[in-house]
């Protein structure tokens, strides 16, 4: 197996680990398990935990995918595995 390809796959797995940790923390952490503690703080008219659960987590989800797309497109090019036109 080509060493380069192995490295590409490992980098991909590292990206996934980082992005999915963020995914886990905002939704299950801020939005559920720690929502009550976060509710002591206000974000405008929102209690913070409530905002994460009903708004913030969803915004973060969208951002995560677009960050992933950017990272992977760069990675594909760097390792010359991107699809040619």
């Amino acid at each position: 197996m080509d060493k380069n390809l192995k490295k590409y796959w490992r980098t991909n797995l590292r990206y996934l680990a980082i992005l999915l940790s963020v995914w886990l923390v905002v939704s299950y952490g801020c939005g559920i398990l720690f929502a009550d503690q976060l509710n002591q703080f206000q974000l405008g008219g929102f209690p913070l935990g409530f905002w994460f659960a009903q708004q913030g987590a969803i915004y973060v989800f969208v951002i995560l995918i677009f960050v992933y797309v950017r990272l992977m497109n760069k990675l594909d090019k760097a390792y010359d595995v991107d699809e040619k036109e």
Partner: protein
Amino acid sequence: MDTQIWTYVIVGVTFLIYIGVAIWAKAGSTKEFYVAGGGVHPIANGMATAADWMSAASFLSMAGLISFMGFGGAQYLMGWTGGYVLLALLLAPYLRKFGKFTVPDFIGDRYYSKQARLVALICALFVSFTYVVGQMKGVGVAFARFLDVDYTTGVLIGIGIVFFYAVLGGMKGITYTQVAQFCVLIFAFTVPAVFISFQMTGNPIPQMGFGGTTKGGAYLLETLNELSVELGFAKYTEVNKGNLTNMFFITAALMFGTAGLPHVIVRFFTVPKVKDARISAGWALLFIAILYTTAPAVAAFARTNLINTMSERAYNDVPEWFTNWENTGLLGFEDKNGDGRIQYVADAEKNELTIDRDIIVLANPEIAKLPAWVVALVVAGGLAAALSTAAGLLLVISTSISHDLLKKYLKPDISEKGELKAARISIAVAVVAAGLAGLNPPGFVAEVVALAFGLAASSFFPAIILGIFDKKMNKEGAITGMVVGVLFTTCYIFYFKPQLGGGGTPDGYWFGISPEGIGTLGMLINFVVALVVSRFTRPTPQAIKELVEMIRYPRMYD
């Protein structure tokens, strides 16, 4: 013009658009019929995926549910969006690279086994069929309330429309109709929300107005909390601490279930490249997020409005919409203390107002006194949501039959033309069958939807993930995992759902997990069983390891 005429006009125009699009996008080959030729633009696919995904439940029921649940409603909001992160990062690009037509295709090839394909096929059929019956019911209800036709006629009109464009256009017709349906439904959902947000908070963006202040200068959510407490309800934004484990499991079951639903996954087979599959998931979630971040705002506005307009109001002074909904039986008033006023309170003994949660979205524009055309628009939006999801599901059903069962299992030597014909016939049969089931929906439709998500999470999700990320996963492991996961989830749901004939009571829930959340546990069991079994059975053949390698890279060097 009154609401009824507006509704006929707007619904009629949208239906004409769908039919026009379908004629323009007729499918000529099986590849066009199954995956729209594989040439759909990522943004168009994003819109189609969003329409495919957002069903009658998202459009009509979700905001109402949240309105009565407060904070806890977040399980639907996060659960039905968070799965797209998993789809984009863990499934879509690899399945696109694999490049076949269906989920059973992947399971069958990756696990080099006809049995595995058959297990996947049965799960796909079951999940899609239970789901589609619910959509047909949504169509019937929307027609019955607003177009003054009876429920049966409503379902029949729905069948007719879907039949036309699904049979003719296959995935190609469905994709482009879904793009149109997305535009209709998102417009229909946001317009009333913008009006109401502006009316109540002075801010036209619902996502911001929701956290803004009302005319008195107090924060809307604070006012709502106070009103709720006054009437004996819990604070709207308060976390229900006793229920956190269950909320965690339900959210997870919905997320992993989303990522395992065949009609969603198959959408990523329709774009030209791996790169497109990734970005297309991003567009899909962005489009879905528009509705999903507006819905909780609508929920809070509706709740506040409802309490303000109804509480302590004299019954002979109620607005016209109240009487209209009362006639449908979805809203009820019983003057228990005989004072002629409506008491809406948490205490069931004293409460005099009963409200079906499903009417919140439909009644909201009327409660806020918006013009008649807005009400009509909401009806067209609800129909678009139900029809687009139904079409996507019906396609999965027909593909499963003509491709996975007929071509790959029973009659491998069938010609391209024969397979296309079989696909058209099976989608026609599926449409009619779903319609008939929708005419006499079993009373437990809502319950089986929980089952659909549980099954998708506990069957497909682990099998696909392991197939991509674990080269050592073999057919023995994957099949045992799927079967054990599905059996566990099904038994638990049947046992604890009295509507399905089970004898269990909530006291018996394992770790307090209700049937809606048990798919998460089923999924974990599937993962563990698959990993253990695969390590003690025959290793994966070399050719399969190479297939997995191929899937992992968008392009191997030559």
